[in-house]
């Protein structure tokens, strides 16, 4: 993407909003995500025509229709494949996948896994509302155990997927989590993802007001959220709490919560998003509310060669070294004979 970044690009929010009227339910968390993404797009110094937003099926997947960019609302679970084909054809495109917990982790689980491990320069916005919304309220692969829905009247039996842990094990080079109600933080993380070269996975906790309302309440409500989430900042101590009085420390290969006053400062963990800090990132990805505060922000940000770059470099090598340089060379390359 770096090749097409144009410092002179300056868009207002309106430039990137399509005229299509948005049809999410009033109060849906996706509205704030939309605002954050559009704002982030204006900050990425990328020409509007070079943005491509690709989605699957589900409430969040209507997203491309609302952006005044190129877009493709594809089929259920398969957005990563379409995004990949487009990126490999035109590496100058800034390709964004919009998916949900059902789309990306259930029907599209296979594609999610494989796009992450291939590390193309593509960004994934995973709208997680822990429910199937567009089909009117069935448990999803991220629903909590015990969630009662129309298809789980006695409570969901399944253990939920930890999407970011899955991304981590597949070698994601950028992993982040945000809560949709915190637009400012969300926007900042999305911009960072946009500037990252390689796959970026951002899990966005977004509230479904109709079928799973308040499932993220502890992380959203201003009065209590600072006790329930921990903002991870690179090279900053992992502390949290309304009064910044709590922190995380390491004991016996596990993360423990402590009161800052009870421990020596140097025992408070410092966050590091570098690639060589995988073990700590792994531990942070395990932390679950309510036993721990929910980590939000960027878990990991590291550069590795991307699929698209490597593919192009192979093509370059082939062009330099190949004996067969044209179609004609190819057609005359086998055992041939001439009849005169």
């Amino acid at each position, binding site marked *: 993407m770096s090749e097409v970044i144009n410092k002179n690009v300056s868009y207002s929010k309106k430039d990137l909003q399509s005229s299509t009227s948005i049809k999410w339910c009033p109060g849906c968390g996706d509205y704030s995500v939309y605002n954050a993404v559009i704002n982030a797009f204006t900050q990425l110094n990328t020409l509007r025509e070079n943005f491509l937003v690709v989605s699957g099926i589900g409430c969040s997947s209507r997203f491309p229709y609302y952006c005044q960019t190129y877009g493709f609302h594809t089929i259920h679970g398969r957005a990563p494949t379409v995004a990949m084909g487009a990126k*490999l054809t035109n590496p100058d495109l800034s390709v964004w996948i919009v998916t949900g917990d059902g789309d990306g982790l259930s029907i599209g689980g296979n594609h999610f896994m494989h796009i992450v491990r291939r590390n193309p320069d593509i960004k994934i916005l995973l709208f997680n509302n822990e429910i199937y919304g567009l089909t009117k309220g069935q448990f999803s692969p991220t629903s909590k155990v015990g969630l009662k829905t129309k298809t789980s009247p006695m409570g969901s039996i399944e253990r939920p997927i930890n999407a970011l842990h899955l991304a981590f094990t597949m070698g994601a080079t950028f992993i982040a989590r945000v809560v949709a109600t915190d637009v400012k933080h969300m926007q900042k993380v999305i911009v960072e993802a946009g500037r990252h070269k390689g796959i970026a996975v951002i899990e966005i906790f977004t509230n479904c007001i109709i079928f799973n309302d308040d499932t993220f309440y502890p992380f959203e409500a201003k009065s209590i959220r600072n006790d329930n989430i921990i903002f991870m900042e690179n090279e900053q101590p992992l502390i949290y709490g309304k009064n910044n009085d709590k922190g995380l420390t390491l004991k016996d290969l596990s993360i423990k919560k402590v009161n800052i006053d009870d421990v020596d400062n140097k025992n408070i963990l410092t966050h590091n998003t570098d690639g060589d800090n995988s073990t700590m990132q792994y531990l942070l990805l395990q932390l679950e509310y309510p036993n721990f505060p929910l980590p939000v922000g960027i878990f990991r940000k590291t550069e590795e060669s991307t699929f698209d770059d490597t593919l192009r470099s192979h093509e370059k090598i082939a062009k330099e070294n190949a004996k067969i340089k*044209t*179609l004609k060379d190819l057609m005359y390359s086998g055992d041939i004979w001439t009849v005169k």
Partner: protein
Amino acid sequence: MMNITSDKTSNTVKNLGLKNVVVRFAGDSGDGMQLTGERLAKVSAMMGNDVLTLADFPAEIRAPAGSLGGVSGYQMTIGTTDVYTTGDKVDILVAMNPAALRVNVDLTKKGGIIILNSFAFTKKNCEKAGYLENPLNNKSLSSFRVISVDVNKIIKEALKDVPLSTKEKERCKNFFALGVVCWLLNRKLDTTIDWIEKKFFKKKLIAEGNQKALNAGLLFCEANEIFSTSFVIDKKKAEHVVKGTYAYINGSTATAWGLICASQKAQRRLFLGSYPITPATAIMQELAAYKQLNVTTYQAEDEIAGIGTSIGASFAGALAATSTSGPGLALKSEFLNLAVIAELPLVVIDVQRGGPSTGLPTKTEQSDLLQALWGRNGESPVVVLAPKTPSDCFFTAYEACRIACKYMTPVILLTDGYLANGSESWQIPDVNSLKSIDIVDHKNINLENYKPFKRFSLTLARPWVIPGTKGFEHRLGGLEKNEAGDVSSDGNNHHRMCELRLQKINKVADEIPFPDFYGNKSGDVLLLSWGSTFGSVRQATHNLTKKGISVSHCHLKYINPFFKNLKNILSSFKHVIVAENNLGQLSVKIRSEFCVNTVPFNEVRGRPLIVKDLEEMVISLL
């Protein structure tokens, strides 16, 4: 066709002239029969014969040695005149073990030659093949001319100075067999000697072993006067051969090259998203080797991702294709519909194999026709084309790309295992003579008038405007759209769009040429075929004509839409026999479209249609 004279008293070898000869090599899957057969076919093609081949191998990579299930065969017809089939029956069978004999003996003509490796005919191997007693020791083969040779022994002697292990030496025995057949058919060894040199240039000893084994086969025939007759299959007569440069090509390679050719003509990158599946994989493998020709191949995580990436590539401006076989086409059907409604160019190659389910994965069949035509939800018309011979895969793949780009539509190319693995000589075309590939993009339209689904009246195609084009930003998707490209759930709009998409596909018929036709334009019997059954049906037509029976043959390359006046052709005959490698799928389409009562001729035996069966069927009808 072949008449062996057992002229054992003569010291000289008679050269018997033949119009054509059918040869089949058979052995264990690891015996190198495919390689050996391919060599003989190539050498014969280069000598000026017409050649058509059939690769007939099992699904297992290395089934237990000597088992019936592990027998791999490679059959070919080598001819002086046009060759249409690989032959119902075999003139010369090479069987490397009892299992190979057992599986193929019924395919061999009475009086035909069977060359056997006697070393392999042990009690154990005979039992494995289901023989109660060694067939070499009884009269069960008395109606054939059997040449039984201890190949292992000869190889051991011939390669005694080559420092290879016994096992490695034994692997050279296929070249001995090739040497024998080359002598029988008067083929020179020099091009094969050169080829071995090149093929094994990193393994000099193996090359030497194979070359010596090849020579040993030839010397064996000369020294032992085992055959009193050898065969001369003259070159095709000069007046039957078009001047030019020829290559020897199989259907997979021809398909791949057709795609590359189209991408160069269209000046678009070629993108193939695909997932390995027999017998389609060879297309992806061939294309993967030519990145320097602006070809991107993407081995996806599954069939669905294969077509998904291709659709993404198509949106972004590549000439995109995906290759698969029947089960894969089933998996791709939802995505195929996305390309239908988004109206993006896409070529889907289905190398058909025996179904349903995993079926006969390495054997040929034409049973995906109805899946290709109708196997999707909603009103989903696509163009369906089928090549008739291995080399025709080049032209039909090219045509599929041309139509896809011109009409902004998916095109399904129905090849099959027989075409993909079969090979023949092919006159290398002048690519300048191929039809141009017309693409309508943003340069052909004014931005002020641009609507994503505004159509051109000539083709009803929408313009192909790709991401990165300033000012034309638009969104595609699986939801129904109106002309402006906005999502629309209006029933009237949906009705109109469904009709337009259908009309667009039907427009293709405007440029479909008269079908490949042989015989009178009216009469009692018309044989109707499509795809790879061309050869069997054309051969049956010739044979019947020679017998004084008047039949005509109409062969279809375009199956959806049909040639415009197909109904007139069909209704000029009393009987329309539809010959297919399935249980009557084209018949269903013909009957439903034209109310013509067809007579189906169907076989699903994992091999091309048997010419003799078809002839008998025609005769019984009259």
